[in-house]
């Protein structure tokens, strides 16, 4: 089967599962709301503090929800004994990877937008002017995160200690993506344009690409029995 | 602490780390080999 056809099939399958149960989106939304409230308790009532730390806090929230989302993508397969079936998929397993990455990005970006909106609402941040530039930053940061996240979710799905190992392996490795992404978020929230510090954007793009290519190439070895 | 104090600390810790790691490797090798030798003893196998 063609890689792209395969990827689309996997994506459609995952989205259909999600549309029917809505388990993932509901849990993620609830969890995000909880996080936003927790930030309020952690930082105290002064909004200036929250505003100053906003880019970091936002990415912190994205990482926490993202980790859960990544793990879930393969947990569903494992619980239903579908990992074997995925392994036997005709054609390039890289297609399965791409499908999972696109699906993961969709769920994560949707959650991120929800978090940003809640954040703006509860901390009185005027996010509308930055919105148009913020979304591309979110997408670019998420692509890199999900590119490796999917790979490691597949690895840790087999292991007993997966809850601990996934963040432990994933977080240090995605620093090259998280750092530029949170820096660009900071710029955008401060009202600057994306091109204000082009080296950050370049860095983010390069690592997105590197991680995607490496993920695509190594995923079949991870799935092998 | 003077400059030589810091130098001593850095070189000392590095020495402990490297010697400690090397020592642990050599000891573990020795233990494994002893185990293999012991087990092979009755069967006349040669273990390098």
């Amino acid at each position, binding site marked *: 089967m063609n890689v792209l056809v395969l990827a689309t099939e996997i994506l459609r399958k995952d989205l259909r599962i999600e549309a029917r149960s809505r388990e993932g989106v509901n849990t993620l939304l609830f969890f995000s709301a909880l996080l936003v409230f927790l930030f309020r308790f952690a930082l105290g009532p002064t909004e200036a503090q929250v505003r100053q730390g906003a880019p970091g806090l936002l990415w912190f929230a994205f990482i926490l929800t993202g980790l859960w989302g990544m793990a879930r993508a393969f947990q569903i397969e494992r619980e239903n004994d579908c990992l074997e079936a995925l392994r036997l998929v005709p054609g390039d397993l890289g297609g399965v990877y791409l499908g999972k990455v696109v699906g993961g990005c969709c769920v994560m970006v949707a959650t991120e937008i929800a978090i940003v909106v809640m954040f703006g609402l509860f901390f009185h941040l005027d996010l509308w002017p930055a919105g148009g530039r913020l979304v591309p930053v979110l997408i670019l940061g998420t692509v890199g995160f999900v590119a490796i996240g999917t790979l490691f979710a597949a690895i840790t799905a087999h292991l007993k200690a997966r809850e601990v190992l996934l963040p432990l392996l994933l977080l240090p490795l995605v620093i090259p993506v998280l750092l530029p992404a949170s820096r660009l978020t900071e710029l955008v929230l401060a009202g600057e344009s994306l091109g204000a510090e082009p080296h950050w954007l370049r860095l983010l793009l390069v690592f997105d690409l590197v991680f995607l290519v490496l993920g695509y190439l*190594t995923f079949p070895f991870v799935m092998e029995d | 602490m003077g400059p030589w104090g810091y130098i001593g600390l*850095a070189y000392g810790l590095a020495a402990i*780390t490297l010697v400690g790691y090397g020592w642990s490797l050599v000891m573990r090798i020795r233990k494994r080999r002893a185990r293999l030798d012991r087990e092979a003893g009755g069967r006349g196998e040669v273990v390098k």
Partner: protein
Amino acid sequence: MDRLGVTLGLGAGALVVAGLWMGLVQAPPDAVQGEVQRIMYLHVPSILTAYLAFTVVLVCSIGYLVRGTRGWDRLAHASAEVGVVFTAITLFTGAIWGKPTWGVWWTWDARLTGTAVLFLVYLGYLMLRSVVEDQDRAGRFAAVVGILGFFDMIFTHMAVEWFRTLHQPSSLQRGTIDTALRLPLYVNLLAFVVLYAYFLTRRLRLAALDEAIEARDLGG
């Protein structure tokens, strides 16, 4: 003991002694930083050796994924472990150098943080190996970390060039280092590389013995 191991061990010992003498006695103190700068003769060779070790991990990881033979995997594992040891040395010698130079043991400088992250990446590599029972599977999983980790390493190294940070940029790369300081540095670097090779042979020996024991336990 095999001849290669003995040669490398003795060579490393002699080179380390020579390096210590050159770094601590023969080299003049730095014009700006004074005597404390002698920590450089430990700090820089150890990070460069760690870079070498992790590059070997990358090559062997690719080799293992492509070929699937145990030798590649064993070499990658051994090199990662030795690399972690050298990264640890880099981190604490850096902290000890930082205290008299910057006034603090640790600062959230990009280079420092990056190196600490690198340490965690390969610690994760070793941890992953220890929790996966099946050797082939552990090797494949670890190879993925080994390949990705290399790109993290490049990021960390380049970080100093991209961010304006407290950590001084690489003197070797810029060529801003005097010959009187350069020669001791090279000797120490050579000593560390040979020491790395020696550790590698020991670690490989250990892995071979472990596998022999395992094979015996299984085969009876």
